[in-house]
């Protein structure tokens, strides 16, 4: 089977892959690079469990062929925090019980990560619209929305402190 070389930056690291063109980005990340954070839920671009950041935008990595991501800058959930040093959004999901089974969580976290940069001071309704491409079958979304609202507050506080320190 014909293979193609694809290079991309994943979580800050340059990666070179040799894959069949039909390889989906989510498979390239999970199986070739062992970043298993992006999950495969529906594999039909409905559920958002495979959401990653690509060139500063949230995308569903199940609906992108790996060669389409040539030269791209990709961020997965592994790239934003570690078990010892969670990202604020991850901390808030933990504190506010923003998950039950956890399957949708990496996608929710990655979408929230980008959404809170697009809109750092959202209303609850804007959060719900912002994560409307991510499905959760456990929580009924209440605690996910709470977690994201709490993360928004924390992130704004942090950025105000930074601004004061610079001033």
């Amino acid at each position, binding site marked *: *089977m*014909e293979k*193609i070389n694809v290079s991309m930056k994943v979580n800050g690291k340059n990666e070179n892959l040799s894959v*069949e*063109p*039909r390889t*989906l980005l989510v*498979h390239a990340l999970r199986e070739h690079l062992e970043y298993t954070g992006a999950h495969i839920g529906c*594999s*039909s*671009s*409905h559920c*958002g469990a495979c*959401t990653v950041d690509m060139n500063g*935008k*949230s*995308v*569903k990595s199940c*609906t*992108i*062929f790996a*060669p*389409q991501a*040539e030269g791209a800058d990709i961020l997965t959930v592994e790239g934003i925090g570690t078990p010892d040093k969670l990202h604020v959004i991850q901390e808030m999901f933990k504190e506010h019980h923003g998950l039950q089974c956890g399957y949708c969580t990496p996608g929710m976290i990655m*979408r929230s990560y980008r*959404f809170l940069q697009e809109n750092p001071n959202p209303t609850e309704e804007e959060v719900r*619209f*912002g994560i*409307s*491409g991510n499905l959760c079958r456990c929580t009924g979304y209440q605690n996910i929305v709470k977690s994201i609202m709490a993360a928004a507050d924390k992130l704004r506080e942090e950025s105000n402190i930074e601004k004061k320190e610079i001033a």
Partner: protein
Amino acid sequence: MIPSAFSFYKPDNLQKAINLIADFGDEGRVIAGGHSLIPVMKQRLTDIKHLIDLSAINELKGIKIKGSSISIGAMTTQVELITNAELFKVAPVIREASLQIADPQVRNLGTIGGNVANGDPANDMPGLMQLLDATYTINGKNGVREIKAREFYEGAYFTAREDDEILVSISFNSPIGGYAYEKQKRKIGDYATAAAGVILSVDNGVCSSASIALTNLSDTPIYCSDAVSMLIGKQIDDSLLSEVTKSCVEQSDPVADQRGPVEFKKYVAGIVVNKALNRAFDRS
């Protein structure tokens, strides 16, 4: 779900893409955002041997506005249509409709060109282009040609574009008056059960120009010419708007599917048309 194998090309200019598609014939396909094409490839409903990615072609990108004339490159994404402040000033109906397409992640990659060229009656942009009386520019090995959106759609997934042609841009004039795009769907990310777009300008209560179009209510998008002629030159009131709504519903021809039986879809069509007419009138 994994599609059958194909070879991949990423030409960096339009001429190269045209040459590739001319060489491959019906074994080749161009890919824009891929959010309609990749799902059908995964389901193996299509057999593509050569996939030509248009994303590196700068000629296909961007929104150009000159006075009242607007031209949008085929590879412009839905999120670009939503966030472009200049476009919102001259054609706000585009943002209103685009925000109702799919979800944030899909809008980041989905393009206007893919949406209009695919010929899926459930897509919103073809209906919107009927509303705006847009013109598509199509390029192929036999040269460039233009075709009106209102003459482009022949049936579900059948359009006036030949296999060896690429839709390169969409142009239309800035619409005048009030506007609305009203879509009923089961959930975010779903296609329309029924959707309607209206553009309406009114002088002293009398309709001076109008356009009405429907989405997913037939195997092609519908421009409601009868309803438009009922409106023009008339004093606008509730009874005229219900007559106009009735005419639009009569022109619709939905099929029963998981979104409901024909009677239900016609009922919903009446609601979305009437809501869109009223909102456009309020904004006129």
